[in-house]
């Protein structure tokens, strides 16, 4: 490879990041195509190959701000990444494959990928042969700019390792590619912890929770103990949650007292109650009154549509946010506290002057993992001073907001994927 002459035409538009980083594509949506005829494999059907390649691209999309779209129509020269399978001398490539064994594929930086069709490529479900998915993920890493590494667990190891327990991009692989393309940023419609009651092996009820991030019609489960989203997320909201709006949810509230346990989703001027046991929204309550219902009906004094809301278990108050105001709703008396609404800047004062979200909060989220409330807006969050913070620093104002931080540096790799790969 080192001996190739540099491309006579210079980098193609989009080949290199205009910011001077020649190691990375500048575009954020890249197109790819599996070459037909000579480039198709004799072992897997074309559809099977395309499905596997689509999944391989999606896996990189799940950890980078890159999207990958299969393009079967544009002129070949306009496709960013062409992939093909061939034997021996192949696809006009100056590098000849060596038959089965040893070299099974090669790739070019910001360029194409070739697979040696003399190898026995198999689908991910097979234990035999060489997994086309694993090789594709590896070669796409090269195209995006990653070199080989001998680090155990990396997808960029040069040798094929059969029967690895799982094929996923580990922490170091993610950091390596994010060094080239940055990490995923973006705002969220709502963020919440979902509590699950489970019985452990002794039959005792235990509480576990997962954190969910909702954006448009997609959602991610965030695994706090692994500091990453669940493998294979995002999914479509409609696939994972039944009976609530399929996109643009404004708020989620888990009302939880000694006698009550209710979960609500809010959107527009309506709210839905969710049945955790049956994993679907209630269509009516025990008195036969139907859901969804008008927010003003269930929460008198609360305006809609909302920006967001969260429930404070200690105070048994729901804080509803709308524009620059916050309303504290007493769930026992079913009314807004007399001293509310207040300006958000008064109820949650900035600890550092001028460092405050002011209005139109995207999401107010109480995290059990961090035992704190966070106000999210755009790609930043502000942490609300907790009681523990105030025990350590008594000068902190009640419910004061610490200076803003980047969401992507606290909750990692919450990345979009191309809509064509959403249902994989």
């Amino acid at each position, binding site marked *: 490879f080192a001996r*190739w002459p540099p491309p006579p035409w210079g980098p193609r538009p989009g080949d290199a990041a205009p910011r001077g980083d020649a190691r990375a594509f500048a575009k954020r949506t890249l197109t790819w195509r599996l070459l037909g005829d000579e480039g198709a494999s004799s*072992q897997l059907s074309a559809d099977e190959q395309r499905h596997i390649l689509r999944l391989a691209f999606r896996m990189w999309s799940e950890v980078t701000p890159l999207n990958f779209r299969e393009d079967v129509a544009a002129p070949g020269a306009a496709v960013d990444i062409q992939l093909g399978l061939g034997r021996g001398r192949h696809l*006009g490539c100056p590098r000849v494959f060596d038959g089965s064994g*040893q070299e099974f594929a090669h790739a070019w930086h910001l360029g194409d990928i070739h697979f040696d069709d003399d190898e026995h490529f198999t689908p991910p479900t097979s234990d035999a042969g*060489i997994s086309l998915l694993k*090789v594709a993920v590896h070669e796409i890493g090269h195209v995006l700019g990653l070199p080989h590494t001998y680090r155990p667990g990396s997808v960029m190891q040069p040798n094929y390792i059969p029967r690895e327990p799982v094929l996923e991009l580990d922490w170091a692989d993610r950091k390596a590619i994010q060094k080239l393309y940055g990490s995923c940023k973006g705002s969220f419609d709502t963020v919440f912890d979902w509590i699950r009651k489970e019985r452990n092996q002794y039959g005792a009820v235990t509480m576990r929770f997962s954190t969910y991030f909702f954006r448009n019609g997609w959602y991610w489960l965030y695994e706090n103990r692994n500091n990453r989203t669940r493998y294979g997320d995002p999914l479509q909201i409609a696939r994972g949650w039944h009976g609530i709006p399929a996109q643009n949810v404004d708020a989620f509230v888990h009302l939880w007292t000694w006698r009550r346990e209710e979960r609500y989703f809010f959107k527009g001027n309506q709210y839905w109650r969710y049945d955790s046991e049956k994993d679907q929204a209630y269509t009516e309550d025990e008195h036969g009154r139907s859901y969804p219902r008008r927010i003003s009906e269930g929460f008198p004094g609360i305006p809609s549509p909302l920006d967001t809301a969260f429930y404070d278990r200690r105070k048994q108050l729901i804080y509803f946010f709308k524009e620059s105001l916050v309303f504290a709703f007493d769930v026992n008396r079913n009314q807004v506290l007399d001293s509310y609404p207040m300006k958000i800047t008064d109820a949650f004062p900035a600890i550092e002057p001028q460092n405050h979200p002011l209005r139109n909060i995207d999401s107010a989220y109480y995290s059990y993992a961090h035992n704190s409330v966070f106000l999210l807006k755009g790609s930043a969050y502000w942490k609300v001073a907790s009681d523990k913070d105030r025990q350590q620093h008594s000068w902190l104002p009640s419910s004061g907001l610490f200076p803003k931080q980047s969401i992507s540096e606290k909750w990692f790799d919450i990345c979009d994927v191309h809509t064509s790969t959403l249902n994989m």
Partner: protein
Amino acid sequence: EPLFHSRDRSDLEPSPLRRAQPIADLLAAQRFLSKYGWADAPPGPGSRPPGPAAPRARPPAAALAEAVRRFQKVNALPASGRLDAATLAAMNRPRCGVPDTRPPVSPPPRARPKR
């Protein structure tokens, strides 16, 4: 049709005609090491010896031993610098064709699509 008997073709045997030449001798090993960036290319037939003015290169055997040693180290093999069976086996494992010690380079000119 390539011969197979199971539905998912998992028993498909690559035709014996198209097997990669096993790396079993010094020259093949040298070629492997230079191909994947561990050593310079072995002198080709007819290449001229370096002139008196060229800087003194290390003797080829020492350079090769050093390259083998580096390769053995990253493959968690005893770094003896000698081409032992385990090292040859490592060289024969299925692998990617991109060199190990250099980042991938830009693509060659694309083949013209067939008309």
